[in-house]
């Protein structure tokens, strides 16, 4: 039992540690990147249970801030191959299990 609890603790630790947003790939400039990342975090926290709404919020907000035709995907497991406008891509992990990709392509 003791071992089990310890393991759990360790797990909890790692999870706690690994909830920060981690930018996996991005070619945005720093300012845009920070803003987009914060937006993603906000959206995912707001709609923690509904990825669709989170993605919609990210997309809408990005459209407003940086012009039309943004696309956002929020999910825990998916594959993608996208064409994006250069300097308009953000691929990040968040919350330890969420992958968010935001890109612009009009």
């Amino acid at each position, binding site marked *: 039992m003791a071992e089990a609890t310890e393991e759990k603790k360790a797990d909890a630790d790692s999870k706690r*540690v690994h909830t920060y947003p981690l930018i996996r790939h991005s070619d945005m400039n720093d300012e845009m990147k920070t803003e987009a990342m914060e937006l993603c975090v906000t959206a995912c926290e707001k709609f923690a249970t509904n990825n669709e709404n989170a993605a919609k919020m990210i997309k809408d907000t990005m459209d407003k801030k940086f012009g039309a035709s943004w696309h956002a995907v929020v999910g825990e497991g998916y594959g993608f191959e*996208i*064409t994006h406008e250069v300097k308009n891509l953000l691929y990040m*992990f968040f919350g330890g299990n969420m*992958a968010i990709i935001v890109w612009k392509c009009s």
Partner: protein
Amino acid sequence: MPPKPIKAKAAPTSDPRKRSKRGDGDDLTEVGDGTEQDDWMQAKTLVKPDDQLELNETELKEEFTRILTANNPHAPQNIVRYSFKERQYKQTSSVDQLAVHFALDGNLLHKDSDEARRQLSRMGLSEQKEEEKEEEKEEVAEAEGGAAAEEGGEEGGAEGEGKEEGGEEGASPAPPVAKGGSKEKKLTNQFNFSDRASQTYNNPFRDRGTVTEPPPRASFASNVTQWEIFDAYQEDFEKQEKSKEKKVLPGRKEEGKTKKKFTMTETSNDDISRIESATKIVERMVNQNTYDDIAQDFKYWEDVSDEYRDQEGTLLPLWRFSFEKAKKLAITSVCWSPGYKDLFAVSCGSYDFMKQGNGLIIFWTLKNPSFPECFFEADSGVMCLDIHPQHQHYIAAGFYDGSVAVFSTVERRDGPIHRCTAKNGKHTDPVWQVRWQKDDADNNMNFYSISSDGRICLWTILKNEMVYQDVIRLCLPDVSAEGPDGIKVPTTGCGTAFDFHKQKDYLFLVGTEEGKVHICSKAYTSHFIDSIDAHNMAVYKVCWNHYHPKIFITCSADWTVKIWEMKDKMDKNEGGDDSRKPLFSFDLNNSVGDVAWSPYSSTVFAAVTSDGKAFVYDLNVNKYEPLCEQMVAQKKKTKLTHIDFNPTFPMVIVGDDRGNVISLKLSPNLRKMKAEKKGAPPVDEATKIQREVEKLEKILSMVREQPTEATAN
């Protein structure tokens, strides 16, 4: 008014009939009228159907009474209805007697009916209201006139045509005509119309388009899985941990950085060096293609005409080496590499005291005549160089400013690895020749230099420095005696050339600007073993024969090339200095810049002169005349400065005072070896040398017997 129009109207209807039936029967109007009447009557006869009963008079007169009643025989008469009023069934008295057998709705409307008016008003909207008013009036008139006209039509046929026509045209035209016109206008015939169309010119259209460049795009693909996310976090976490550690030890971090930088530069160097060899090969391939004909000539061409000329030969120009940076410099020395038979080095400087500038050392290879293999630039004119016979990447060079330097081709640096300064033994005048010597007892490399300041220096290269030692100071004993105040001023001789003996290490020759040739020994710094008044002007080159140990050649600005024999001390004492005469003397009719013994024969040498000619002599063939005298320089006034034989190939390189080096192939006559006996076993090196010495000795013996004859030339 009314009757007249009636006639007019009736006439046209009857007219055509008359004409068609009777032709020109104007005269028979009366009779015609009668028959006309009959015709009309006949037209009224009854037509009987075929199946009509034939009845006689009585039958016809019989009366049948038929009564038309309004009662419908088929109508039911026994309809009863329950009457609530009387509370009993009662027969209905009123039965509908009407039976319709056929009904057809017409599409005709009475003109005055409401509906017709409405239609008219709808259709005639476009017509003016005034017209409508007129119409109404006329309608009334027409109603009267129309009825009259029909009557008149029947009656008025009897009247004459002329009358009718006259009446029509004359008094009574207006109302009916006007009526007819207005009527037609009113009832427009929908099927009688014509289209009118016109087309305006279309304005010409012009298309103008432009396409903006789409924003640059890129593709990105990845896969998201929980484990990848986990791994990414894990990795990042570790990185963070590491960076934390680094922050704790800032010193280490810096170290890491510098290391990184170092590796970066290393790799970048690698990138360049990686393609360097490849590009070099490609460059040589291109050059091989470009100069293929020359390469073929170099390898295979032999002047066939030599067979028909006994004692003459030619020089075939091969590659010409010129370098942009050396364009305005003179070639001050040429030197084949002892190790690579296609490689040679030239030094570039200027012989003109007034036009001193920079200098160059250039390495050329026969494999690439278009660009030097490598080159060094110097701030002062390079007057001489020598490639180390064992360590061929070391080059000793002497400069016009009196310094000497050592360059290395393997160490990648632009400047020399050693260069003397005024502090450590630099000459005060131009250095005219440098020559490597065998390594000394401590295995240090060393070389000699000779300069116009009269010093001959030995330079020894130690690990980090170059140390010098004066070997000989040239002086002119006879001039020093001429002090005006009785003061003996030691005047220095100006060394211009030297050459070391091939076998005896200590022995060497020195040529001076005064025309003297000194035979010196390294052992004695103050005096010479022998001294010869060889020339009247500066000696430009002294050179030991490659085979015979006592024979050397000199050339000078006094237009001559002379061959000398070193005599033993005993001989010298016997003969005395003044009586020293050369074995051979050749006048080349211009200042002789350089002379060189051939490496393959003891009797062949070549010389170049300031008028652009190259000479090749073979004493074995002709003791008096050159086998070849050829203009080599491409432009007039170009001086040839130096010449050197290739150690293996039958070719020479010639340098001129415009920075060009020309390679020339010797024709067969110029390199005739001693006639080989056919079938004889190949001779070894020693016997070959022996034979060459014998060959020269044989000629010399002839000359020695009649010295006056030889020198007379």
